[in-house]
């Protein structure tokens, strides 16, 4: 059984085909990347996976289960978490509360337990708080636990979003341009963090524009252009692929 698989996934908005019969697989425990010029349809792929959009055609499978068309919260419960290209933290909630909220799908407490604070509720709350602190430590934000997400520096916000996503114990973590706006030092730390996440058993799938980071961290790269997969392979293969260079830089003169 394959871990994660897209089969002929297509998404059309009216006449515009944003994703065109895309197929690929992800091996568990790997770090894979998707690259492509602006507007290639990368974020749309993430939105299809997390149930924001329903594919027009094709199938998305996680561990043999078809997940396309599922509601976003159910996709999360099945083990897919994500971060956002433009950070979408809960701005006026503390960093700790952000991460605790990320744990929502793994909590069992229902309405009446929340109302009455039953012993079971208190116990669960305590465990979740501990776990959230652990995750903050994991991304090196323990000192920011009580600060509002809004008040954290940009790089910290990016890491907090990752911690929040990890709180749902995902099998597959989707990172949407995690290095956007980061300085070289932060990027270096991010690469280490992504590797540490993988080492905990989480498969990482990222969209990124920073070629250096992509080539450095990912084991397989898929290249998207105009919604179509134009190349897939090892970073070194992709880097030297003519179609990829063409997509990014345009056709070489005289080659036509």
């Amino acid at each position: 059984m394959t871990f994660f698989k897209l089969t002929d996934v297509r998404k059309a908005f009216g006449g515009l085909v944003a994703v065109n019969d895309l197929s690929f697989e992800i091996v568990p425990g790997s770090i894979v990347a998707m690259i492509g010029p602006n507007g290639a349809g990368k974020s749309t792929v993430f939105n299809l996976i997390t149930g924001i959009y329903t594919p027009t055609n094709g199938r998305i499978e996680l561990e043999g289960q078809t997940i396309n068309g599922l509601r976003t919260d159910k996709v999360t419960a099945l083990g897919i978490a994500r971060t956002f290209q433009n950070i979408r933290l809960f701005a006026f909630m503390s960093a700790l509360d952000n991460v605790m909220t990320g744990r929502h799908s793994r909590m069992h407490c229902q309405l009446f337990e929340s109302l009455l604070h039953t012993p079971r509720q208190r116990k669960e709350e305590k465990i979740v708080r501990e776990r959230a602190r652990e995750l903050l430590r994991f991304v090196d934000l323990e000192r920011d636990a009580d600060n509002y997400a809004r008040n954290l520096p940009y790089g910290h916000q990016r890491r907090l979003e990752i911690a929040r996503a990890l709180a749902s114990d995902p099998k597959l973590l989707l990172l949407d341009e995690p290095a956007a706006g980061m300085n070289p030092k932060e990027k270096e730390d991010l690469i280490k963090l992504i590797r540490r996440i993988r080492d905990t058993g989480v498969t990482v799938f990222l969209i990124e524009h920073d070629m250096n980071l992509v080539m450095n961290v990912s084991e397989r790269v898929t290249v998207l252009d105009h919604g179509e997969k134009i190349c897939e392979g090892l970073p070194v293969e992709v880097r030297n692929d003519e179609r990829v260079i063409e997509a990014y830089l345009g056709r070489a003169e005289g080659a036509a």
Partner: protein
Amino acid sequence: MLKGLGIAALGLLVLVYPLLDHNNAHVDFLTNAGAFILLALGLNIVVGFAGLLDLGYAAFFAIGSYSFALLSSQQFEIHIPFWVMLFLASAIAAIFGILLGAPTLRLRGDYLAIVTLGFGEIVPQTFLNLSQWTNGPNGISSLDQPSFFGRAFGFSATPYYYVIIALIAIAILLASNLQNSRLGRAWMAIREDELAARHMGVNTTTTKLAAFALGASFSGMAGCVYAAKLDLVSPDQFQFNVSVLVLSMLVLGGMGNIVGVIVGSFILSFINSFLLPQSTALAQSVGLHLDFTNYRFMLYGFILVAMMLFRPEGLIPSRQRKAEFKEAMKDPHLASQEQEEYEERPGLTV
């Protein structure tokens, strides 16, 4: 320590007040104010916690009141005991909370406000026009008198006062429990960013409906007590101005903060049912023909405008609101732009 003592002293004063002040009118006023505190605590769950602007909240107050009037009176010869009705009325209101909530789930901000406003108008109109059951504009009177271990409540406001105080205490406990729970965080998350909340595994449908249902149930309970005490329900008690009054209490006190909401609620009740009638009486006793109660809405308007100018986050705001308003004040354009971005974006930018 000092704060704890203060709270204990205030609690004690609240408990023994009817023994100290034998003026039934005062206790009566406090009981009515208590009913409005209960309403405000309920609306705070919907608007303050979950961020769903509800302009038709009086509808649930009406549903609670009419539930008692129809099921505990001569009207249909049904006489369900008051204590059972407290829970039944809040359950009925909660069901209507879900019925109202369901069609509004996709709406937010202004659109949600307009739909809830419509619902707030429909409910009293329905009670008005179902005259074969509700006596239309005359309302329903001679409701069953509650009794406590065989002793009827009588015409004194004191027993109702204690019922309301007990209900407020329970409401405060439940509301603060909710705030620090899985559900409370889910509400906050929806308020901050609904799409991100969904990605955390929050089922936004059931979570929003829970807010509507719980908010409505507080209101239904308040309605039940209010109807029993007044011994009358009629459609004109539940007009739009009641919804606005309760919302104003939240704005004045500080949305999302339980203490703030109680303070705001008490202040407006005090002005509305005590200060204005008393000063009118005083003016007339010295020969001035002034009726200050006519200036009620003008005064509310002044208060709200002054609040918006000087303390938009409310008298005792929650930590969050305070930070939000501080941010908005620093750069008003930034704040409003961001709001738009969140509201007009159905999905993520591609």
